[in-house]
Protein backbone atom coordinates (compact mmCIF):
# COMPACT_ATOMS: atom_id res chain seq x y z
CA UNK A 1 0.00 0.00 0.00
CA UNK A 2 1.51 3.30 -0.95
CA UNK A 3 -0.09 6.58 -0.04
CA UNK A 4 0.82 10.22 -0.42
CA UNK A 5 1.75 12.02 2.79
CA UNK A 6 0.38 15.34 1.56
CA UNK A 7 -2.95 13.88 0.51
CA UNK A 8 -3.36 12.49 4.04
CA UNK A 9 -2.36 15.76 5.69
CA UNK A 10 -4.80 17.60 3.46
CA UNK A 11 -7.51 15.07 4.17
CA UNK A 12 -6.97 15.42 7.90
CA UNK A 13 -6.87 19.18 7.54
CA UNK A 14 -10.12 19.35 5.57
CA UNK A 15 -11.95 17.09 7.98
CA UNK A 16 -10.44 18.94 10.95
CA UNK A 17 -11.62 22.21 9.45
CA UNK A 18 -15.15 20.87 9.11
CA UNK A 19 -15.10 19.31 12.56
CA UNK A 20 -13.94 22.56 14.10
CA UNK A 21 -16.57 24.46 12.15
CA UNK A 22 -19.43 22.16 13.07
CA UNK A 23 -18.21 20.91 16.46
CA UNK A 24 -18.17 17.25 15.50
CA UNK A 25 -15.38 14.69 15.85
CA UNK A 26 -15.07 14.04 12.16
CA UNK A 27 -14.61 10.26 12.45
CA UNK A 28 -17.66 9.72 10.28
CA UNK A 29 -15.95 11.67 7.49
CA UNK A 30 -12.42 10.31 7.92
CA UNK A 31 -13.33 6.64 7.52
CA UNK A 32 -15.34 7.07 4.28
CA UNK A 33 -12.64 9.37 2.88
CA UNK A 34 -9.97 6.76 3.60
CA UNK A 35 -12.15 4.15 1.89
CA UNK A 36 -12.53 6.44 -1.15
CA UNK A 37 -8.72 6.71 -1.11
CA UNK A 38 -8.54 2.91 -1.50
CA UNK A 39 -7.42 2.16 2.04
CA UNK A 40 -8.92 -1.24 2.95
CA UNK A 41 -12.05 -0.63 5.09
CA UNK A 42 -10.68 -2.72 7.98
CA UNK A 43 -7.68 -0.40 8.28
CA UNK A 44 -9.74 2.73 7.60
CA UNK A 45 -12.05 1.88 10.51
CA UNK A 46 -9.36 1.09 13.09
CA UNK A 47 -7.19 4.02 12.04
CA UNK A 48 -10.21 6.31 12.08
CA UNK A 49 -10.84 5.32 15.71
CA UNK A 50 -7.24 6.20 16.55
CA UNK A 51 -7.55 9.59 14.87
CA UNK A 52 -10.77 10.36 16.73
CA UNK A 53 -8.94 10.19 20.09
CA UNK A 54 -6.76 13.16 19.21
CA UNK A 55 -9.58 15.44 18.13
CA UNK A 56 -11.86 14.45 21.03
CA UNK A 57 -9.07 14.88 23.57
CA UNK A 58 -8.27 18.30 22.27
CA UNK A 59 -11.98 19.24 22.33
CA UNK A 60 -12.70 17.70 25.73
CA UNK A 61 -9.83 19.66 27.33
CA UNK A 62 -11.53 22.90 26.35
CA UNK A 63 -14.83 21.74 27.82
CA UNK A 64 -13.15 20.45 30.96
CA UNK A 65 -11.70 23.87 31.56
CA UNK A 66 -15.06 25.51 31.04
CA UNK A 67 -16.62 22.82 33.29
CA UNK A 68 -19.14 22.17 30.52
CA UNK A 69 -19.02 18.41 30.88
CA UNK A 70 -20.76 15.98 33.18
CA UNK A 71 -18.14 13.51 34.42
CA UNK A 72 -20.64 11.25 36.15
CA UNK A 73 -22.91 10.96 33.13
CA UNK A 74 -19.85 10.49 30.92
CA UNK A 75 -18.58 7.67 33.14
CA UNK A 76 -21.88 5.78 33.05
CA UNK A 77 -22.06 6.20 29.26
CA UNK A 78 -18.48 4.99 29.11
CA UNK A 79 -19.24 1.82 31.10
CA UNK A 80 -21.89 0.95 28.54
CA UNK A 81 -19.56 2.01 25.74
CA UNK A 82 -16.81 -0.42 26.74
CA UNK A 83 -19.25 -3.35 26.70
CA UNK A 84 -20.63 -2.28 23.32
CA UNK A 85 -17.17 -1.75 21.84
CA UNK A 86 -15.93 -5.19 22.94
CA UNK A 87 -18.93 -6.77 21.31
CA UNK A 88 -18.41 -4.63 18.22
CA UNK A 89 -14.79 -5.70 17.78
CA UNK A 90 -15.69 -9.39 17.86
CA UNK A 91 -18.48 -8.81 15.35
CA UNK A 92 -15.94 -6.86 13.26
CA UNK A 93 -13.46 -9.77 13.27
CA UNK A 94 -16.25 -12.24 12.44
CA UNK A 95 -17.52 -10.15 9.51
CA UNK A 96 -13.98 -9.81 8.23
CA UNK A 97 -13.58 -13.58 8.19
CA UNK A 98 -16.86 -13.90 6.33
CA UNK A 99 -15.72 -11.33 3.78
CA UNK A 100 -18.74 -9.15 4.50
CA UNK A 101 -17.02 -6.43 6.52
CA UNK A 102 -16.78 -3.93 3.67
CA UNK A 103 -20.45 -4.37 2.87
CA UNK A 104 -21.67 -3.96 6.45
CA UNK A 105 -19.43 -0.94 7.08
CA UNK A 106 -20.75 0.73 3.92
CA UNK A 107 -24.36 -0.16 4.73
CA UNK A 108 -24.05 1.20 8.27
CA UNK A 109 -22.56 4.41 6.95
CA UNK A 110 -25.20 4.83 4.28
CA UNK A 111 -27.99 4.17 6.78
CA UNK A 112 -26.71 6.37 9.61
CA UNK A 113 -25.37 9.20 7.51
CA UNK A 114 -28.53 9.15 5.41
CA UNK A 115 -30.87 9.28 8.41
CA UNK A 116 -28.83 11.75 10.47
CA UNK A 117 -28.14 13.96 7.44
CA UNK A 118 -31.77 13.88 6.36
CA UNK A 119 -33.12 14.71 9.82
CA UNK A 120 -30.60 17.48 10.30
CA UNK A 121 -31.39 18.99 6.95
CA UNK A 122 -35.13 19.00 7.67
CA UNK A 123 -34.62 20.43 11.13
CA UNK A 124 -32.25 23.17 9.98
CA UNK A 125 -34.40 24.16 7.00
CA UNK A 126 -37.33 24.48 9.39
CA UNK A 127 -35.18 26.54 11.77
CA UNK A 128 -34.01 28.81 8.96
CA UNK A 129 -37.63 29.40 7.91
CA UNK A 130 -38.66 30.06 11.50
CA UNK A 131 -35.82 32.46 12.20
CA UNK A 132 -36.81 34.35 9.10
CA UNK A 133 -40.25 34.60 10.69
CA UNK A 134 -38.55 36.09 13.76
CA UNK A 135 -39.15 33.27 16.27
CA UNK A 136 -36.55 31.70 18.55
CA UNK A 137 -36.30 27.97 19.08
CA UNK A 138 -35.63 26.20 22.35
CA UNK A 139 -34.54 22.60 22.24
CA UNK A 140 -35.22 21.65 25.81
CA UNK A 141 -38.55 22.01 27.45
CA UNK A 142 -38.03 21.47 31.20
CA UNK A 143 -40.58 19.40 33.05
CA UNK A 144 -41.52 17.49 29.93
CA UNK A 145 -40.99 13.74 30.45
CA UNK A 146 -41.18 10.69 28.25
CA UNK A 147 -41.23 6.91 28.82
CA UNK A 148 -37.46 6.91 29.50
CA UNK A 149 -38.03 8.81 32.72
CA UNK A 150 -40.33 6.10 34.07
CA UNK A 151 -37.64 3.35 34.06
CA UNK A 152 -36.27 2.06 37.41
CA UNK A 153 -32.69 2.35 38.87
CA UNK A 154 -32.69 6.11 38.86
CA UNK A 155 -29.50 8.06 39.36
CA UNK A 156 -28.88 11.75 39.91
CA UNK A 157 -26.55 13.62 37.55
CA UNK A 158 -25.96 16.98 39.15
CA UNK A 159 -24.06 18.74 36.38
CA UNK A 160 -26.81 17.86 33.91
CA UNK A 161 -29.61 18.55 36.40
CA UNK A 162 -30.95 15.11 35.56
CA UNK A 163 -32.56 12.35 37.57
CA UNK A 164 -32.92 9.36 35.23
CA UNK A 165 -32.65 5.60 35.16
CA UNK A 166 -29.15 4.27 34.36
CA UNK A 167 -30.66 1.71 31.95
CA UNK A 168 -31.12 4.05 28.95
CA UNK A 169 -27.77 5.72 29.68
CA UNK A 170 -25.92 2.39 29.70
CA UNK A 171 -27.85 1.20 26.64
CA UNK A 172 -27.06 4.37 24.72
CA UNK A 173 -23.39 4.08 25.69
CA UNK A 174 -23.30 0.43 24.60
CA UNK A 175 -25.02 1.17 21.29
CA UNK A 176 -22.61 4.00 20.46
CA UNK A 177 -19.62 1.88 21.55
CA UNK A 178 -20.78 -0.91 19.24
CA UNK A 179 -21.10 1.46 16.29
CA UNK A 180 -17.83 3.16 17.15
CA UNK A 181 -15.88 -0.08 16.92
CA UNK A 182 -17.51 -1.22 13.68
CA UNK A 183 -17.60 2.14 11.93
CA UNK A 184 -14.45 3.73 13.35
CA UNK A 185 -16.30 6.79 14.55
CA UNK A 186 -16.56 8.50 17.89
CA UNK A 187 -20.31 8.44 17.55
CA UNK A 188 -20.79 12.08 18.47
CA UNK A 189 -23.16 12.60 15.58
CA UNK A 190 -25.56 10.09 17.17
CA UNK A 191 -24.65 10.69 20.81
CA UNK A 192 -25.33 14.43 20.74
CA UNK A 193 -28.90 14.26 19.37
CA UNK A 194 -29.66 11.21 21.57
CA UNK A 195 -28.54 13.04 24.74
CA UNK A 196 -30.51 16.13 23.82
CA UNK A 197 -33.72 14.58 22.56
CA UNK A 198 -33.93 11.27 24.47
CA UNK A 199 -32.30 12.00 27.82
CA UNK A 200 -33.03 15.75 27.80
CA UNK A 201 -29.49 16.62 28.84
CA UNK A 202 -28.90 20.41 28.77
CA UNK A 203 -27.21 21.43 25.51
CA UNK A 204 -24.30 23.16 27.23
CA UNK A 205 -22.89 19.94 28.74
CA UNK A 206 -23.81 17.62 25.85
CA UNK A 207 -20.79 18.14 23.59
CA UNK A 208 -18.23 18.05 26.42
CA UNK A 209 -19.74 14.89 27.90
CA UNK A 210 -19.96 13.22 24.52
CA UNK A 211 -16.32 14.08 23.75
CA UNK A 212 -15.21 12.85 27.16
CA UNK A 213 -16.68 9.40 26.71
CA UNK A 214 -15.59 9.21 23.05
CA UNK A 215 -11.92 9.55 24.09
CA UNK A 216 -12.14 6.41 26.17
CA UNK A 217 -14.32 4.38 23.86
CA UNK A 218 -12.10 5.27 20.88
CA UNK A 219 -8.95 4.48 22.92
CA UNK A 220 -10.42 1.15 23.97
CA UNK A 221 -11.49 0.39 20.37
CA UNK A 222 -8.04 1.27 19.04
CA UNK A 223 -6.30 -1.06 21.49
CA UNK A 224 -8.73 -3.92 20.87
CA UNK A 225 -8.54 -3.53 17.08
CA UNK A 226 -4.79 -3.48 17.27
CA UNK A 227 -4.71 -6.63 19.41
CA UNK A 228 -7.36 -8.61 17.55
CA UNK A 229 -6.97 -7.48 13.96
CA UNK A 230 -3.63 -5.58 13.70
CA UNK A 231 -5.43 -3.01 11.59
CA UNK A 232 -4.26 0.21 13.26
CA UNK A 233 -1.78 2.20 11.19
CA UNK A 234 -0.09 4.71 13.49
CA UNK A 235 1.66 6.60 10.70
CA UNK A 236 -1.56 7.02 8.76
CA UNK A 237 -3.46 8.05 11.90
CA UNK A 238 -0.74 10.48 12.97
CA UNK A 239 -0.78 12.32 9.63
CA UNK A 240 -4.56 12.61 9.85
CA UNK A 241 -4.32 13.86 13.44
CA UNK A 242 -1.77 16.55 12.63
CA UNK A 243 -3.87 17.78 9.72
CA UNK A 244 -7.01 17.46 11.79
CA UNK A 245 -5.84 19.29 14.89
CA UNK A 246 -4.53 22.19 12.83
CA UNK A 247 -7.57 22.32 10.55
CA UNK A 248 -9.98 22.29 13.50
CA UNK A 249 -8.67 25.61 14.81
CA UNK A 250 -9.32 27.44 11.56
CA UNK A 251 -12.66 25.71 11.16
CA UNK A 252 -13.76 26.87 14.60
CA UNK A 253 -12.97 30.47 13.70
CA UNK A 254 -14.97 30.30 10.47
CA UNK A 255 -17.75 28.50 12.31
CA UNK A 256 -18.16 31.37 14.78
CA UNK A 257 -18.97 33.72 11.93
CA UNK A 258 -21.71 31.52 10.46
CA UNK A 259 -25.16 31.14 11.93
CA UNK A 260 -26.16 27.92 13.71
CA UNK A 261 -28.95 26.74 11.45
CA UNK A 262 -27.05 27.55 8.27
CA UNK A 263 -24.10 25.65 9.66
CA UNK A 264 -26.31 22.66 10.43
CA UNK A 265 -27.84 22.74 6.95
CA UNK A 266 -24.36 22.74 5.39
CA UNK A 267 -23.21 19.87 7.56
CA UNK A 268 -26.39 17.96 6.70
CA UNK A 269 -25.69 18.37 2.98
CA UNK A 270 -22.13 17.19 3.45
CA UNK A 271 -23.25 14.13 5.42
CA UNK A 272 -25.83 13.29 2.76
CA UNK A 273 -23.23 13.63 0.00
CA UNK A 274 -20.92 11.12 1.73
CA UNK A 275 -23.87 8.73 2.23
CA UNK A 276 -24.85 9.02 -1.44
CA UNK A 277 -21.33 8.36 -2.63
CA UNK A 278 -20.98 5.24 -0.44
CA UNK A 279 -24.43 4.07 -1.54
CA UNK A 280 -23.52 4.59 -5.19
CA UNK A 281 -20.45 2.36 -4.74
CA UNK A 282 -22.64 -0.41 -3.32
CA UNK A 283 -24.96 -0.40 -6.30
CA UNK A 284 -22.60 0.30 -9.18
CA UNK A 285 -20.89 -2.59 -10.89
CA UNK A 286 -17.40 -3.11 -9.44
CA UNK A 287 -14.35 -2.97 -11.70
CA UNK A 288 -13.97 -6.70 -11.14
CA UNK A 289 -16.43 -9.00 -9.41
CA UNK A 290 -13.49 -10.90 -7.95
CA UNK A 291 -11.38 -9.69 -5.07
CA UNK A 292 -8.43 -11.15 -3.20
CA UNK A 293 -7.60 -11.02 0.46
CA UNK A 294 -4.54 -12.41 2.13
CA UNK A 295 -5.19 -15.15 4.64
CA UNK A 296 -7.67 -17.90 4.43
CA UNK A 297 -9.69 -18.55 7.51
Amino acid at each position, binding site marked *: *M*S*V*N*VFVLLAMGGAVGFLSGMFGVGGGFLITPLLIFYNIPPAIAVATGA*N*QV*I*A*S*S*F*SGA*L*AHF*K*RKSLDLKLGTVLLAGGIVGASLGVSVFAYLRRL*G*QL*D*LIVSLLYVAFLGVVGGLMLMESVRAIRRSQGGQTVTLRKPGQHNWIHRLPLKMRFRASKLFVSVIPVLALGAFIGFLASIMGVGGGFIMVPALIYLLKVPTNVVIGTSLFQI*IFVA*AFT*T*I*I*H*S*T*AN*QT*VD*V*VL*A*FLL*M*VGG*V*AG*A*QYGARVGQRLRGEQLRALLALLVLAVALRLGFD*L*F*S*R*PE*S*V*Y*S*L*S*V*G*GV
Partner: protein
Amino acid sequence: MRLCSIVTTPVLLLLPVLAARAQSEIPENIQIGLSTDQVSITSDFSGAELTIFGALDNADPLVARQGRYDVVVVLEGPPRAVTVRKKTRVAGMWINTQSVIFRDVPASYSMALTRAPQDITAPAGYRQLALGAGNLHLQPLDADGDPKTIEEFTRALRERKEAQGLYSTRAGGVRFLSQSLFRASLRLAPNVAVGTHRARAFLFRNGMFLRETSAQLTIRKAGLEQRLYQFAHENSTLYGVFAVLIAIVTGWLGRLIFRKD
Protein backbone atom coordinates in the same frame (compact mmCIF):
# COMPACT_ATOMS: atom_id res chain seq x y z
CA MET B 1 38.09 -13.74 -35.84
CA ARG B 2 35.60 -13.62 -38.71
CA LEU B 3 38.41 -13.58 -41.26
CA CYS B 4 39.95 -16.47 -39.47
CA SER B 5 36.78 -18.55 -39.61
CA ILE B 6 36.32 -17.91 -43.33
CA VAL B 7 39.80 -19.12 -44.04
CA THR B 8 39.59 -22.16 -41.87
CA THR B 9 36.28 -23.63 -42.98
CA PRO B 10 37.18 -27.22 -42.11
CA VAL B 11 37.93 -26.22 -38.57
CA LEU B 12 34.57 -24.51 -38.33
CA LEU B 13 32.85 -27.68 -39.44
CA LEU B 14 34.67 -29.53 -36.73
CA LEU B 15 33.70 -27.09 -34.03
CA PRO B 16 30.27 -28.43 -33.12
CA VAL B 17 31.73 -31.87 -32.70
CA LEU B 18 34.43 -30.53 -30.45
CA ALA B 19 31.98 -28.42 -28.58
CA ALA B 20 29.66 -31.35 -28.04
CA ARG B 21 32.51 -33.37 -26.67
CA ALA B 22 33.59 -30.53 -24.41
CA GLN B 23 30.05 -30.22 -23.19
CA SER B 24 29.64 -33.80 -22.15
CA GLU B 25 32.63 -33.23 -19.93
CA ILE B 26 31.89 -29.77 -18.56
CA PRO B 27 28.21 -28.84 -18.99
CA GLU B 28 27.00 -25.26 -19.08
CA ASN B 29 26.15 -23.74 -15.79
CA ILE B 30 24.21 -20.64 -14.84
CA GLN B 31 24.81 -18.32 -11.93
CA ILE B 32 23.04 -15.24 -10.71
CA GLY B 33 24.08 -12.60 -8.26
CA LEU B 34 22.09 -9.93 -6.51
CA SER B 35 23.80 -6.69 -5.70
CA THR B 36 22.03 -6.81 -2.34
CA ASP B 37 20.17 -9.51 -0.49
CA GLN B 38 17.86 -6.97 1.07
CA VAL B 39 15.59 -4.36 -0.40
CA SER B 40 14.01 -1.76 1.88
CA ILE B 41 10.82 -0.07 0.82
CA THR B 42 9.44 3.15 2.21
CA SER B 43 5.77 4.06 2.63
CA ASP B 44 5.81 6.16 -0.53
CA PHE B 45 7.35 3.27 -2.48
CA SER B 46 5.91 3.42 -5.96
CA GLY B 47 7.54 0.37 -7.44
CA ALA B 48 11.10 -0.17 -8.60
CA GLU B 49 13.26 -2.02 -11.07
CA LEU B 50 15.27 -4.88 -9.68
CA THR B 51 18.33 -5.80 -11.69
CA ILE B 52 19.81 -9.24 -11.41
CA PHE B 53 23.11 -10.06 -13.06
CA GLY B 54 24.03 -13.54 -14.13
CA ALA B 55 26.60 -15.49 -16.05
CA LEU B 56 26.81 -18.67 -18.06
CA ASP B 57 29.76 -20.92 -17.33
CA ASN B 58 31.25 -23.03 -20.08
CA ALA B 59 28.96 -21.46 -22.64
CA ASP B 60 29.46 -22.79 -26.12
CA PRO B 61 30.62 -19.70 -28.01
CA LEU B 62 28.97 -20.85 -31.22
CA VAL B 63 25.56 -21.38 -29.64
CA ALA B 64 25.96 -18.12 -27.80
CA ARG B 65 26.83 -16.24 -30.99
CA GLN B 66 23.78 -17.62 -32.73
CA GLY B 67 21.70 -16.43 -29.80
CA ARG B 68 20.37 -19.83 -29.04
CA TYR B 69 20.87 -19.61 -25.30
CA ASP B 70 17.81 -18.35 -23.54
CA VAL B 71 17.47 -17.30 -19.94
CA VAL B 72 14.29 -16.95 -17.93
CA VAL B 73 14.50 -15.18 -14.57
CA VAL B 74 11.68 -15.33 -12.08
CA LEU B 75 11.22 -13.48 -8.81
CA GLU B 76 8.68 -15.25 -6.66
CA GLY B 77 7.12 -13.63 -3.59
CA PRO B 78 6.52 -15.43 -0.29
CA PRO B 79 3.70 -17.99 -0.41
CA ARG B 80 0.52 -17.09 1.43
CA ALA B 81 -3.01 -18.31 1.79
CA VAL B 82 -5.34 -16.19 -0.30
CA THR B 83 -9.13 -15.98 -0.30
CA VAL B 84 -10.72 -15.20 -3.64
CA ARG B 85 -14.20 -13.76 -3.34
CA LYS B 86 -16.81 -13.23 -5.99
CA LYS B 87 -19.47 -10.56 -5.89
CA THR B 88 -22.88 -11.08 -7.36
CA ARG B 89 -25.81 -8.77 -7.55
CA VAL B 90 -28.20 -9.22 -4.63
CA ALA B 91 -31.16 -6.85 -4.40
CA GLY B 92 -29.29 -4.42 -6.61
CA MET B 93 -26.15 -4.42 -4.45
CA TRP B 94 -22.87 -6.09 -5.28
CA ILE B 95 -22.19 -8.48 -2.42
CA ASN B 96 -19.51 -11.13 -1.86
CA THR B 97 -21.38 -14.38 -2.19
CA GLN B 98 -18.83 -17.03 -3.08
CA SER B 99 -15.27 -17.63 -1.99
CA VAL B 100 -12.48 -20.14 -2.52
CA ILE B 101 -9.37 -20.30 -0.36
CA PHE B 102 -6.06 -21.13 -1.99
CA ARG B 103 -2.99 -22.08 -0.05
CA ASP B 104 0.62 -21.17 -0.72
CA VAL B 105 -0.10 -18.63 -3.43
CA PRO B 106 3.08 -16.68 -4.30
CA ALA B 107 2.38 -13.08 -3.28
CA SER B 108 4.04 -11.95 -6.50
CA TYR B 109 5.50 -13.58 -9.57
CA SER B 110 7.46 -11.53 -12.02
CA MET B 111 9.16 -13.18 -14.92
CA ALA B 112 11.67 -11.78 -17.38
CA LEU B 113 12.75 -13.63 -20.52
CA THR B 114 15.26 -13.14 -23.29
CA ARG B 115 12.49 -13.47 -25.88
CA ALA B 116 8.76 -14.03 -26.11
CA PRO B 117 7.86 -17.18 -24.14
CA GLN B 118 6.70 -19.14 -27.18
CA ASP B 119 10.03 -18.51 -28.93
CA ILE B 120 12.06 -20.08 -26.13
CA THR B 121 10.43 -23.42 -25.65
CA ALA B 122 7.11 -25.19 -26.15
CA PRO B 123 4.26 -24.70 -23.66
CA ALA B 124 4.84 -28.25 -22.41
CA GLY B 125 8.37 -27.25 -21.39
CA TYR B 126 7.04 -24.44 -19.18
CA ARG B 127 4.42 -26.73 -17.71
CA GLN B 128 7.02 -29.30 -16.73
CA LEU B 129 9.06 -26.70 -14.91
CA ALA B 130 5.92 -25.05 -13.45
CA LEU B 131 7.37 -21.92 -14.99
CA GLY B 132 5.22 -18.86 -15.65
CA ALA B 133 2.27 -17.44 -13.76
CA GLY B 134 -0.06 -19.55 -15.90
CA ASN B 135 1.65 -22.75 -14.80
CA LEU B 136 1.83 -22.07 -11.08
CA HIS B 137 0.23 -24.87 -9.20
CA LEU B 138 -2.51 -23.07 -7.32
CA GLN B 139 -4.13 -25.41 -4.89
CA PRO B 140 -7.47 -24.80 -3.21
CA LEU B 141 -7.67 -25.59 0.48
CA ASP B 142 -10.77 -27.64 -0.14
CA ALA B 143 -9.71 -29.85 -3.04
CA ASP B 144 -13.11 -31.58 -3.18
CA GLY B 145 -14.93 -28.48 -4.36
CA ASP B 146 -16.71 -28.24 -7.69
CA PRO B 147 -13.91 -28.43 -10.32
CA LYS B 148 -15.67 -25.85 -12.47
CA THR B 149 -15.82 -23.35 -9.62
CA ILE B 150 -12.19 -24.02 -8.69
CA GLU B 151 -11.14 -23.45 -12.28
CA GLU B 152 -13.10 -20.21 -12.44
CA PHE B 153 -11.59 -18.92 -9.18
CA THR B 154 -8.08 -20.02 -10.15
CA ARG B 155 -8.41 -18.00 -13.32
CA ALA B 156 -9.79 -15.05 -11.33
CA LEU B 157 -6.89 -15.27 -8.88
CA ARG B 158 -4.32 -15.00 -11.70
CA GLU B 159 -6.27 -12.28 -13.42
CA ARG B 160 -6.53 -10.14 -10.23
CA LYS B 161 -2.83 -10.65 -9.45
CA GLU B 162 -1.98 -9.51 -12.98
CA ALA B 163 -4.30 -6.52 -12.67
CA GLN B 164 -2.52 -5.53 -9.46
CA GLY B 165 0.80 -5.76 -11.27
CA LEU B 166 1.94 -8.57 -9.00
CA TYR B 167 2.08 -11.25 -11.67
CA SER B 168 3.92 -10.02 -14.70
CA THR B 169 5.83 -11.30 -17.69
CA ARG B 170 8.40 -9.24 -19.52
CA ALA B 171 9.71 -10.57 -22.82
CA GLY B 172 13.08 -9.02 -23.51
CA GLY B 173 13.58 -8.35 -19.80
CA VAL B 174 16.74 -10.47 -19.90
CA ARG B 175 19.56 -9.25 -22.14
CA PHE B 176 22.93 -10.72 -22.85
CA LEU B 177 25.67 -8.18 -22.25
CA SER B 178 28.30 -10.48 -23.68
CA GLN B 179 28.36 -14.10 -24.71
CA SER B 180 28.18 -15.26 -21.16
CA LEU B 181 27.01 -12.30 -19.10
CA PHE B 182 23.35 -11.35 -18.83
CA ARG B 183 21.23 -8.84 -17.01
CA ALA B 184 17.59 -9.33 -15.99
CA SER B 185 15.37 -6.43 -15.02
CA LEU B 186 12.28 -7.25 -13.06
CA ARG B 187 9.53 -4.99 -11.86
CA LEU B 188 8.78 -4.71 -8.15
CA ALA B 189 5.15 -3.61 -7.90
CA PRO B 190 4.26 -0.76 -5.48
CA ASN B 191 2.32 -3.25 -3.37
CA VAL B 192 5.10 -5.85 -3.30
CA ALA B 193 4.85 -8.14 -0.28
CA VAL B 194 7.42 -7.99 2.47
CA GLY B 195 9.20 -11.23 3.21
CA THR B 196 11.62 -13.61 1.58
CA HIS B 197 11.47 -13.63 -2.19
CA ARG B 198 13.19 -16.21 -4.31
CA ALA B 199 14.94 -15.36 -7.54
CA ARG B 200 15.37 -18.26 -9.94
CA ALA B 201 17.10 -18.37 -13.30
CA PHE B 202 16.49 -21.04 -15.92
CA LEU B 203 18.87 -21.71 -18.76
CA PHE B 204 17.67 -23.07 -22.10
CA ARG B 205 19.67 -24.07 -25.16
CA ASN B 206 17.85 -24.53 -28.43
CA GLY B 207 14.60 -24.74 -26.51
CA MET B 208 15.94 -27.44 -24.19
CA PHE B 209 16.00 -26.79 -20.47
CA LEU B 210 19.50 -27.22 -19.06
CA ARG B 211 19.85 -25.85 -15.59
CA GLU B 212 18.36 -23.79 -12.85
CA THR B 213 19.84 -21.71 -10.08
CA SER B 214 18.34 -19.61 -7.33
CA ALA B 215 19.08 -16.86 -4.85
CA GLN B 216 17.16 -15.24 -2.04
CA LEU B 217 16.09 -11.68 -1.59
CA THR B 218 14.49 -10.21 1.49
CA ILE B 219 12.10 -7.35 0.97
CA ARG B 220 11.36 -5.35 4.09
CA LYS B 221 9.93 -2.06 5.06
CA ALA B 222 12.46 0.69 5.62
CA GLY B 223 13.75 1.73 9.06
CA LEU B 224 10.98 3.17 11.16
CA GLU B 225 8.23 1.49 9.18
CA GLN B 226 9.83 -1.93 9.58
CA ARG B 227 10.03 -1.38 13.34
CA LEU B 228 6.40 -0.25 13.50
CA TYR B 229 5.27 -3.16 11.35
CA GLN B 230 7.08 -5.63 13.61
CA PHE B 231 5.79 -3.88 16.69
CA ALA B 232 2.19 -4.02 15.40
CA HIS B 233 2.42 -7.73 14.72
CA GLU B 234 4.50 -8.94 17.63
CA ASN B 235 3.28 -6.73 20.46
CA SER B 236 -0.09 -5.75 19.14
CA THR B 237 -1.66 -4.68 22.45
CA LEU B 238 1.28 -2.51 23.39
CA TYR B 239 1.18 -1.06 19.90
CA GLY B 240 -2.46 -0.14 20.45
CA VAL B 241 -1.58 1.60 23.73
CA PHE B 242 1.22 3.43 21.93
CA ALA B 243 -1.21 4.53 19.20
CA VAL B 244 -3.57 5.90 21.87
CA LEU B 245 -0.76 7.79 23.62
CA ILE B 246 0.36 9.37 20.36
CA ALA B 247 -3.21 10.50 19.73
CA ILE B 248 -3.52 12.00 23.22
CA VAL B 249 -0.20 13.82 22.97
CA THR B 250 -1.09 15.13 19.51
CA GLY B 251 -4.48 16.32 20.74
CA TRP B 252 -2.92 17.97 23.78
CA LEU B 253 -0.16 19.64 21.75
CA GLY B 254 -2.73 20.83 19.25
CA ARG B 255 -4.61 22.45 22.08
CA LEU B 256 -1.45 24.07 23.50
CA ILE B 257 -0.40 25.48 20.17
CA PHE B 258 -3.75 26.72 18.97
CA ARG B 259 -5.66 27.52 22.13
CA LYS B 260 -7.61 30.70 22.22
CA ASP B 261 -9.07 30.74 25.73
